[in-house]
């Protein structure tokens, strides 16, 4: 059986006046049916652009310049705009980061849901409304009939994100790309939404790409994880393996900078320096300027080496030894 | 940047990068703005040198011959002058009429803008510096003034005062001062809270000196931009008022009045009496706007990166 999504060597570049920004530069990963992939990285690592590339919504001056995006075997990188439109919101849905900004402030919630139904299916308004109401109920919005007639500003942030999730679920898609959907929410709401999404995805057999900078979210949710840095995947593998025994110094740094109860009293470690500008990346490993293990070998480009069963890292000096707890 | 050197701007070797030098080189970097400035300079020179340039003194009735009335452009009149732009119904050479009309238009436009600038800038400074009740009273009046269309306010004032160059200037000043006041107050408010004003106050400098010696120079850039645009607006408004017969007297016609005079003949195909003064007006206004538009880009620190 083909995977829901297989991304091969994806390249998305932005052609700015200052030069070419290689926001995504050779990214590959696979999402099996019903599985959750956590796409982790700092802001600017290219994880959101990867998401937008898959759904075909990269804004100019950016565009997908290479690679394949195989969605159930069909390459989306070469699909027509109309074909993409028919897939978007239907087979592939997306949830955005800031729920306060994703719903149109001047349109009622029912309008925004019904139009989504009718964009992909020839049904009358009443049927569409029915579906909208049922889906709102499904994501845990009380009295959906009344809420349908409301404007977005009458909802709280968490409720709006539930509406956005409901819109994503309207057509029971094969794949949902969630771009940091809980970052802007309170921690308690975050937990609720995570649990909700996990449940719904399991019920409908939907695959998920969960884009986040928060490793603790990935830990509880994802099956696999891919860590991105400067437009590339630097480490990937099953989530338990990567989080328990990270190989790449960057992943090690990321995990080290997560505050956790086990390390009370211990100083939080942090990654020194800043994300390098994508405009002027030095040759070789992009992480070398911030890496304690970097040496002359790192001036060469490392490949994604398969170092353990199912776990790969783009590093010449991976943490193959045990990490001090 | 090749057009910078071509236009002869003093940027040959910017050894010291003074703000003024940078301003000049940035200004002349725009071809359209340079063109606007050149055209406007020519127009201003024409207006200033009118008595020596114009083929005829259009105000001197003795030089006019009614027999030369409504001659077509290029025709030679009885006095032997070639009327390149034709003549009006009085036999007045249109070219001379336009050059002298430019004088009136520019005088009224620039004059009223200057006075309005003085009045408005002073009140705006005062509002920003004094704050409190003075500020709110002045700004209320400004808001009220700006909420009414200029043409209506000018109409009202001229209805009370009657025609005449001086009254037009008064009307334009009353209509325009509020723009300056708002601009100056805005930038003065920002400047007021800066440390150097604090320092000047601690030195117990007289208020007048703080206002005009310290605060005012820093409000100049936005004022120059507004001022340039307002000159164009004043010229257009004066032309409109004169066209409506409420502006300058018939004895010393501005461009607007020249256009109005030719209006009735235009319907019978004698287009030139209205058309050429109109073109002169158009070129004047557009050239000032080109300069002003670019000045705004150059002087606006927010747009600078």
């Amino acid at each position, binding site marked *: 059986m083909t995977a829901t999504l297989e991304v091969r060597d994806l390249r998305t570049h932005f052609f700015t006046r200052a030069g070419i920004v290689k926001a995504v530069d050779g990214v590959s990963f696979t999402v099996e049916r019903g599985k959750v992939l956590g796409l982790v990285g700092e802001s600017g690592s290219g994880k959101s652009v990867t998401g937008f590339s898959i759904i075909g*919504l990269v804004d100019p001056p950016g565009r997908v310049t290479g690679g394949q995006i195989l969605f159930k075997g069909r390459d989306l990188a070469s699909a027509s705009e109309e074909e993409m439109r028919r*897939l*978007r919101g239907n087979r592939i849905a997306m949830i955005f980061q800031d729920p306060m900004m994703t719903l149109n402030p001047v*349109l009622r919630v029912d309008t925004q849901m019904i*139009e989504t139904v009718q964009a992909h299916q020839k049904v009358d308004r009443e049927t569409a409304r029915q579906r909208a109401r049922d889906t709102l109920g499904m994501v845990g919005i009380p009295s959906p009939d009344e809420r349908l007639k409301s404007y977005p500003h009458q909802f709280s942030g968490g409720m709006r994100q539930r509406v956005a999730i409901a819109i994503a679920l309207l057509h029971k898609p094969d794949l949902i790309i969630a771009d940091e959907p809980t970052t802007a929410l309170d921690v308690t709401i975050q937990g609720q939404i995570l649990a909700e999404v996990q449940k719904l995805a399991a019920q409908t057999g939907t695959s998920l790409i969960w884009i986040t900078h928060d490793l603790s979210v990935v830990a509880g949710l994802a099956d696999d994880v891919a860590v991105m840095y400067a437009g590339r995947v630097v480490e990937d593998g099953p989530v338990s393996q990567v989080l328990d025994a990270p190989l790449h110094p960057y992943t090690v740094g990321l995990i080290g900078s997560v505050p956790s109860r086990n390390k009370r009293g211990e100083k939080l470690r942090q990654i020194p320096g800043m994300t390098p500008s994508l405009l002027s990346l030095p040759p070789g490993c992009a992480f070398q300027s911030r890496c304690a293990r970097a040496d002359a070998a790192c001036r060469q480009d490392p490949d994604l080496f398969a170092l353990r069963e199912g776990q790969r890292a783009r590093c010449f000096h991976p943490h193959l030894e045990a990490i001090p707890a | 940047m090749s057009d910078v050197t071509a236009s002869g701007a003093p940027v040959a070797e910017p050894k010291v990068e003074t703000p003024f030098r940078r301003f000049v080189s940035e200004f002349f970097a725009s071809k359209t703005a340079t063109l606007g400035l050149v055209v406007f300079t020519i127009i201003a020179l024409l207006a200033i040198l009118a008595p020596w340039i114009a083929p005829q003194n259009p105000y001197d009735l003795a030089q006019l011959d009614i027999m030369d009335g409504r001659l077509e452009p290029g025709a030679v009149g009885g006095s032997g002058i070639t009327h390149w732009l034709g003549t009006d119904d009085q036999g007045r050479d249109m070219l001379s009429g336009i050059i002298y009309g430019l004088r009136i238009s520019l005088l009224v436009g620039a004059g009223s803008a200057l006075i309005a600038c003085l009045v408005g800038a002073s009140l705006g400074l005062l509002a920003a510096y004094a704050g409190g009740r003075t500020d709110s009273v002045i700004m209320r009046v400004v808001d009220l003034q700006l909420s009414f269309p200029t043409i*209506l306010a000018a109409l009202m004032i001229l209805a*009370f005062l009657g025609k005449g160059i001086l009254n037009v200037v008064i009307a334009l000043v009353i209509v325009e001062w509020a723009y300056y006041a708002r601009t100056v107050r805005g930038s003065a408010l920002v400047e007021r809270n800066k440390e150097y004003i604090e320092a000047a106050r601690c030195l117990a400098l007289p208020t007048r000196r703080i206002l005009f010696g310290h605060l005012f120079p820093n409000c100049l850039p936005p004022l120059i931009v507004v001022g340039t645009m307002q000159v164009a607006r004043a010229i257009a408004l004066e032309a409109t008022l004169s066209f*409506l017969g409420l502006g300058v007297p018939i004895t010393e016609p501005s461009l607007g009045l020249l256009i109005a005079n030719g209006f009735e003949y*235009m319907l019978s195909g004698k287009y030139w009496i209205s058309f050429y003064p109109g073109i002169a007006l158009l070129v004047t206004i557009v050239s000032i706007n080109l300069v002003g538009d670019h000045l705004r880009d150059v002087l606006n620190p927010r747009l600078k990166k």
Partner: protein
Amino acid sequence: MTVYLLRRILQSFMVLVAMSIIVFVGVYAVGDPVEILISPDADQLERERAIRALGLDLPLWEQYLVFVQRALQGDLGRSFVFNEPALQIILQRMPATLELAFGSMFLSILIGLPLGLYAGLKPDSVASKTIMAGSILGFSLPTFWVGLMLIMVFAVQLGWLPSTGRGETATLFGLQWSFLTANGLAHILMPAFNLALFKISLVIRLTRAGVRETMLMDYVKFARAKGLSQNRVIFVHVFKNILIPVVTVVGLELGSTIAFSVVTESVFAWPGMGKLIIDSINVLDRPVIVAYLMIIVLMFIVINLVVDILYSVLDPRVRLEAKA
């Protein structure tokens, strides 16, 4: 909402009082009231009788009260020229002006919105740059000059459109309207376009800025992520957000459109209030001038008030804030 409404009405009332004082002082103090209010043809005896009748021997503040009292009863004096109540003359001319003003507002939306939308969606195309350059001209060219050029080209040279007057009119609701007959439509086209020039430029700029801003919003991207067609995204999601500010601004412009119709009406000999006021100023028919000024000030204040209220009704966000 009620408090907001009351406060807004009170504000408007204050402005009206302030303006009435200005007009009053303008007429009674700056000019010579005897000359202004009494026909120049009157003899000495009539003058003195009129001075007493008009209360010009009273102190200024008392005169103001009398002026207000009469104004409230709809008495703004009698026209010297027409020998009819000034108010009545103005009200007779008002429909023509309103027709022209609404016609120009309609045109400004009809022309400005599509051009602005195009310029906003394709900001780098040659056509967009031409549109924007044109809008700068629309802002800076004097209306009367453009009007003359229109007449010269379309009436004199080409002979396509009539140059002056309202043309044939038809009756609707007891008033005469030009736009109901083909001939009348031909007459209103040029003046309405002329009066609309400034607003077309305004609408183009507002729409363009709005489109460019809105296109970057997350909700537009989300709308596209939902699989909506490009047309639905632009004409529903983007358009509805732009429409509110654009309509508000155009509505706010009604007052100034009526004021600026003075110029257009004079150029095209359109028999409305604007032409009346210019004629009146030229023959010193001062009661008509005073009446015109008071009416237009009142209109202005009412329009601003109505637009403010409409705005809060149209935009759900403002509505909620007012409630809270």
